[in-house]
């Protein structure tokens, strides 16, 4: 006869406000299998947990149901408490009467009836529970960091410094990410590359860090502690070990029309190129879309003609013989125990053609087609000493210094009409920075900033934005801009000054749009490869928005930086270190315990049809030969590897002979809960 203990939590007022907890406890007390049924104010507190422990001892309980918040919150808490009192942790279940009852219904009798129903369902389920032992699996203490920007570099260095191996996979030819494109960083106006490049070099040279640049993640298999990642190392055509970085190849390359990505399209580059002079590794790559030889090769292959060598001047100029046109992409497998996704961001574009159907461009601004309408990163390149204008802020259309620049904040951000409702967090700060950099560079230059609000929440940030307005003399106008067009050689900016109550037109030479921060292109495909979830914009979902910001719901996969939400450099760095701490905690033991929610095959009834194998996304089903005493194979049945099984139960539902049960969610348990509901 079962001896179940029921504990109904008030959760302060959270549950008790709409559910009559005492009545629930009283009602369930009549259940024949329930020997103890109480209600209490805070079950998760120490005294609350002691109630459970004492009851286990006093009443000899063989099952516990805690009716309280979501099992996602405290199931582990109560399982641990029960375990400490000598009851197997898996004989504990929770009934969700808070998030899924008290919080969504008014104080009516139906709400209490529903709560009682949910508790009874769990009582019947737990009667079918069996004791389970956690599964122990080994951990590969190597981390995979996807993305080599500031967040990825920080996480990698923290993990490596703690004595663990790290693999960084970066899709661009160099480390550095967007931070390497910035001129100065707020609020200190530190030279961005000066503070970043030492970190890039550290990551490159660290004995525990293996760097794959110009590479992407092709596939991720396995599970926490035991992943296998397949990395696609894209064909550089340059052997980075032999290349000396002399640059002779770039000097002779005749293809000069490719738009330079690092300089945001403000200038062109050769087909064989290094992205920027401080690139790490400082070795070139051949862009096959613009290389004359590769273009000819693609045409020949498309027409079924033989491939002939074209140009290849770079290879001839290379004294180190480091260039080869024979190689292609390489697929490399690595074993890792944890994955950090630090893929960073891209900027929203105001163009007519948008990458997602829910986004719209700014037709009001001519879709940004005018060359003197630039975005924040383009302005950074203009202001940067290593940029296309050598650090002089000049109009792209005519190379003249602009006498008036209009800066428009919230371009795309906070604009549901364009598809982006969120705030990008960094634009108020970098616009103030841009205004100040401009006014230092062009004396007497007029900077007009159109803003909606000023969000300057970090340390020293408010003083920074005030400096732009009060010391530097930037004109801050609260209002939006409804149209930008070219007339008489000027960019006419039609805005409004809402505090002054008047429309305001500015004749500008340049307009800088603070465009919204979005996740990187291809993020959804990557997230699906990793089995992690994302929101409607592509930002990766954290496990809990308040308390678990660097983990995902997929065990072993963590987040850092702008891949999760827009943030500035200090926050990205802090988050990356937090992520590293989580990874190191995972690596701190050679074995980790897994929840024993795995499937098991009853080999007596299994007919060996292997429908389960076809249904399993993880390859956890193995073939087991059942032999007689003489060693003859009688039949082959399915066997599930408890280390690989992730506990989804698809095999159990698929099995035609009902030979598979999923521990924790057996048919008996599910039917018992359905039968207990008052239907």
């Amino acid at each position, binding site marked *: 006869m079962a001896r179940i203990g029921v504990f109904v939590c008030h959760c302060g007022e959270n549950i008790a406000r709409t559910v009559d907890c005492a009545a629930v406890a009283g009602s369930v007390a009549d259940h024949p299998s329930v020997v103890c049924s109480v209600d209490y104010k805070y079950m998760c507190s120490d005294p609350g947990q002691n109630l459970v422990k004492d009851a286990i001892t006093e009443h000899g309980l063989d099952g516990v149901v805690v009716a309280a918040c979501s099992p996602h919150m405290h199931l582990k808490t109560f399982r641990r408490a029960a375990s400490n009192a000598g009851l197997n942790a898996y004989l504990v279940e929770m009934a969700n009467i808070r998030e899924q009852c008290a919080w969504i219904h008014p104080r009516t009798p139906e709400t209490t009836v529903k709560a009682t129903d949910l508790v009874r369902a769990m009582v019947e389920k737990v009667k079918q529970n069996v004791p389970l032992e956690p599964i122990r699996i080994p951990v590969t203490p190597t981390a995979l960091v996807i993305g080599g920007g500031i967040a990825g570099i920080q996480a990698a260095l923290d993990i490596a410094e703690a004595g663990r191996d790290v693999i960084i996979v970066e899709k661009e030819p160099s480390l550095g990410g967007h931070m390497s494109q910035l001129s100065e960083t707020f609020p200190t106006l530190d030279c961005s590359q000066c503070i970043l490049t030492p970190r890039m070099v550290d990551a490159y040279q660290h004995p525990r860090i293996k760097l794959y640049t110009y590479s992407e993640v092709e596939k991720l298999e396995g599970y926490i502690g035991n992943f296998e990642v397949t990395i696609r190392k894209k064909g550089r055509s340059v052997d980075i070990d032999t290349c000396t970085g002399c640059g002779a190849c770039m000097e002779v390359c005749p293809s000069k029309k490719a738009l330079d990505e690092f300089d945001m399209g403000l200038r062109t580059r050769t087909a064989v190129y290094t992205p920027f002079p401080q690139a790490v590794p400082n070795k070139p790559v051949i862009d096959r879309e613009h290389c004359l030889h590769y273009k000819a090769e693609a045409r020949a292959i498309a027409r079924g003609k033989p491939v002939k060598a074209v140009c290849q001047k770079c290879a001839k100029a290379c004294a180190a013989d480091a260039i080869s046109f024979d190689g292609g992409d390489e697929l490399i497998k690595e074993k890792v125990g944890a994955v950090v996704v630090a893929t960073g961001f891209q900027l929203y574009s105001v163009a007519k053609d948008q990458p997602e159907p829910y986004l719209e461009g700014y*037709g*009001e601004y001519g879709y940004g087609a005018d060359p003197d309408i630039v975005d924040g990163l383009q302005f950074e390149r203009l202001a940067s000493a290593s940029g296309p204008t050598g650090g002089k802020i000049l109009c792209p259309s005519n190379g003249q210094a602009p006498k008036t620049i209009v800066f428009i904040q919230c371009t795309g951000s906070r604009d549901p009409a364009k598809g982006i409702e969120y705030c990008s967090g960094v634009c108020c700060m970098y616009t103030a920075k841009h205004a100040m950099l401009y006014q230092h560079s062009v004396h007497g230059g007029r900077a007009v900033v159109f803003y909606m609000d000023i969000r300057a929440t970090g340390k020293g940030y408010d003083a920074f934005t005030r400096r732009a307005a009060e010391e530097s003399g930037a004109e801050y106008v609260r209002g939006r801009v409804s149209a930008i067009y070219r007339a*008489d050689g000027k960019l006419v900016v039609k805005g409004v000054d809402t505090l002054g109550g008047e429309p305001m037109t500015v004749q500008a030479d340049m307009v800088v749009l603070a465009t919204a921060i979005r996740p990187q292109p291809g993020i959804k495909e990557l997230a699906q490869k990793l089995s992690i979830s994302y929101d409607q914009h592509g930002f990766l979902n954290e496990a809990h928005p308040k308390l678990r910001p660097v983990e995902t719901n997929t065990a072993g996969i963590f987040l850092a930086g702008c891949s999760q939400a827009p943030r500035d450099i200090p926050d990205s760095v802090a988050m990356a270190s937090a992520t590293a701490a989580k990874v190191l905690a995972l690596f701190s033991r050679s074995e980790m315990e897994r929840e024993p929610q795995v499937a098991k095959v009853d080999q007596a009834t299994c007919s060996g049809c292997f429908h389960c194998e076809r249904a399993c996304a993880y390859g956890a089903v193995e073939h087991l030969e059942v032999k007689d005493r003489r060693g003859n194979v009688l039949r082959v049945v399915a066997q599930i590897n408890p280390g690989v099984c992730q506990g989804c139960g698809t095999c159990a539902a698929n099995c035609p002979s009902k030979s598979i049960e999923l521990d924790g969610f057996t048919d008996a348990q599910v039917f018992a809960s359905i039968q207990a509901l008052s239907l």
Partner: protein
Amino acid sequence: MRFGYYPGCSLHATAREFSESLLTLVKALDVQLDEVEDWACCGASSAHATNHLLGVALPARTLAIAEGQGLDNIVAPCAACYGRLAGAAHEIEGDAALKGQVAEILKRPLGTPPEIINVVGFLQSLLPEIQPRVVKPLDGLKVACYYGCLLLRPHKVTRFDDREQPESMEQVCAAVGATPVAWNKRIECCGAGFSLSRTGSVIRMGREILDDARAAGAEAVVVGCPMCHSNLDMRQPAMNRGQAGAGALPVLYITELVGLAMGLDPKAMGLQRHYVSTQPLLDRLSTAVAVAEGEVS
């Protein structure tokens, strides 16, 4: 080819040339326009400003009659009529309760409303028939295509062209040999109904529009709306008054421009009715033809 047709009030009165040029044009193209029987006013600004339900039910009556007539579409040349008809269709399709209420008021069944087409969309769809019939080259006449407001907005109702950087009028004008100029005030409001109540504002707004068209080198302004035409044509003398160098800029309905390219009779199209005379333009085009035909050098 047959299309449903809703002339609306203005085409019968102040925008008579719009009607004349349109009807002359469709006759030359062998296109039949089936007028909606017993149509009434679309409500224009007055109805929806008075009462929302009235603003929907009045044009919905036209939609119901057209549907009953078996019309799949309705060409509504007046941009305001277009906006009201398309707007009513959009509202009743999105709100079943409203649809029921309006059907009850009209005592007519409301099924699927016909597709509402504006004059520019209408001409775009007829370009394959128009282009072979272009006989009078417009000699690259520089035109400023002026859209005004209602052809494009609200976009979720019209779903026509791009509401900030439209190209449909330019496409039609270029297809008949004119050269559309790039200019900035293509979608700036003309002042609409304030023509009577705040004439000063309309004068100021229209002057800015015309100045921008002139600065871009336009020889004529092309419109697709009777209100825009009235404001820019009838009020133009007041706009140009006292402005040195502000030469008169003829304002043509797009149907008039296409008709001219097809060699249709200017008088039949009503070009003599404009306040800003179109004669200099017609002379320029005749000379062009004569030059092309080798009569005059």
